[in-house]
């Protein structure tokens, strides 16, 4: 198996050069609002095409090309740059966009301060948007751009966004995050930013009032998210962007300060890499379980057996377009479950064996149908789940320990009884003649 993998690996890597770097596919449908000019986003789309994606453009109101034909998804990813579209064609209405996720297609959606059907869809992803017409505003740092055009520092030490990106230009609508654990903020608002009516500071009084009520009803501060990722249980990814302009050529080329280019281009690259399942994509190649010191997989286990569970995990490597053994997960857990986890133990990587995670444990003193469960869910990473069922039985009738030292008095008792019986029989039979003679003699008298 391992040998086969090493053999296939270079071959597949070669063939996949022509393919895109996404783990799920290279076809992208871009729903571009007619009000947005394709030329204004040439760098963003050019970067995607350079990576190997095949872009298909379509207006949100058009009906062709179809996204789903004969119940088969025609595209691997859908980019919805339609922040101001009010009416969508039947197959791309917000509700049908959700059904794309269940077909494991990935979505990149752009919002705007205007009220559109996408606004109501956002709330289904636990994103709480401010009222229509209230974009994000920040008066800091002092600069010559409008207050709605804000430089935002991308997060540091984030496993989706690369480190040391220059600040990115943002203008658009912030999102307050609900308690959904599938959300992962990719870009947070600056602490001084708030959502308010764009044109003037006429709403300032309301803001001050809200701030006095300890921020109730206030869209402000760094807990607001500007770009938010969402990963469904089936590992499809949807990313919500507060303003489509952050991908525009204008913002990419706009300098943050003199001589410093904005980080928009790199940020867009990281966001699309995550959304289109290039980065942070894991999979469980296989799981094995067997009795300790045995190689054949166990069919059933007896209570109190020592069992080894092994999982092989790979990470998608977009550089080669193929999967590569991944040993850097140090917080994975294995559960041995019958209704409740009877055993929950860490599943650490095995040193010297890339991609292999193994743990040995004692099967509980309880028979029944058990499951080996691996359930690894971390924000921003593909969810890893694996379940394999195995029966645990009590020992066979001849599987119990025998000749226990504690039982030696009983063994001695039984054997001595038999020995004494034989001795007794021997004495009895030996004494028989004499007795017989004696008896005869007595009778004769």
């Amino acid at each position, binding site marked *: 198996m391992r040998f086969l993998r090493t053999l296939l690996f270079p071959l597949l890597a070669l063939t996949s050069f022509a393919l895109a770097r996404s783990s799920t596919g290279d076809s992208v449908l871009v729903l571009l609002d007619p009000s947005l000019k394709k030329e204004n986003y040439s760098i963003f789309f050019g970067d995607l095409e350079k990576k190997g994606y095949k872009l298909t453009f379509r207006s949100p109101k058009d009906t062709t090309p179809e996204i789903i034909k004969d119940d088969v998804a025609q595209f691997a990813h859908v980019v919805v740059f339609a922040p101001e579209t009010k009416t969508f064609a039947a197959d791309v209405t917000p509700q049908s966009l959700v059904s794309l996720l269940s077909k494991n297609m990935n979505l990149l959606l752009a919002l705007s301060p205007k009220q559109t059907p996408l606004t109501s869809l956002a709330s289904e992803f636990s994103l709480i948007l401010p009222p229509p017409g209230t974009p994000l505003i920040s008066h800091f740092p002092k600069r010559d751009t409008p207050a709605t055009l804000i430089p935002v520092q991308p997060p540091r030490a984030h496993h989706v966004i690369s480190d040391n990106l220059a600040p990115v230009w943002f203008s658009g609508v912030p999102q307050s995050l609900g308690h959904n654990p599938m959300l992962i903020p990719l870009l947070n608002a600056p602490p001084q930013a708030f959502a308010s009516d764009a044109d003037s500071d006429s709403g300032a009084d309301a803001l001050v009032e809200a701030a006095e009520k300890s921020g109730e009803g206030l869209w402000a501060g760094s807990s607001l998210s500007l770009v938010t990722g969402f990963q469904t249980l089936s590992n499809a990814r949807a990313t919500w962007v507060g303003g489509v302009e952050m991908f525009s050529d204008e913002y990419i080329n706009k300098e943050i300060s003199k001589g410093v280019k904005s980080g928009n281009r790199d940020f867009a690259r990281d966001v699309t890499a995550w959304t289109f399942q290039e980065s942070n994509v894991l999979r469980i190649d296989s799981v094995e379980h067997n009795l300790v010191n045995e190689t054949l997989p166990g069919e059933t286990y007896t209570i109190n057996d020592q069992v080894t569970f092994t999982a092989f995990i790979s990470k998608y490597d977009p550089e080669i377009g193929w999967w590569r053994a991944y040993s850097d997960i140090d917080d994975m857990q294995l559960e041995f479950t019958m209704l409740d986890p009877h055993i929950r133990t860490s599943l650490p990587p095995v040193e010297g064996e890339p991609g292999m995670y193994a743990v040995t444990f004692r099967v509980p003193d309880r028979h029944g149908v058990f499951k080996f469960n691996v359930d690894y869910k971390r924000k921003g990473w593909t969810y890893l789940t694996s379940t394999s069922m195995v029966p645990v039985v009590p020992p066979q009738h001849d599987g*119990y320990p*025998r000749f*226990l030292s*504690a*039982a030696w*008095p*009983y*063994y*001695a*008792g*039984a054997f*001595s*009884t*038999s020995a*004494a*019986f034989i001795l*007794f*029989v021997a*004495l*009895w039979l030996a*004494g028989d003649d004499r*007795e017989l003679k004696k008896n005869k003699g007595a009778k004769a008298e």
Partner: protein
Amino acid sequence: MPATKTAPPAKKAGSSPLLSLWKAYNETTSTRLKTIDSFLVFLMLSGIVQFLYCILITNFPFNAFLAGFASCVGQFVLTASLRAQVNPANRNEFKEVSPERAFADFALGSIVLHFFVYNFLG
């Protein structure tokens, strides 16, 4: 039983009743019955030891205890029956059972008993 018959010699001995009982038993019991009696005593002691071990130390594995203890008890019962049947004093009660027949019954019963004991011993 022999003890009842020992009353006259006990008077002659003129010492403590237990001693005279012992003396009378020695004098009036045949060698065969003495062999049986010593076998019975051995079985009783063995059973007591196993029972104490079970109570005081461990009853695990319990099947081994049952086998060992039952072999003592069963053998005791069989041997006691043999003693009753071959005792000349009981000749009237077991008219149709000859001592040879009694011994054959005893031997067969014991062999069957031991067969079960070893099956159960584990």
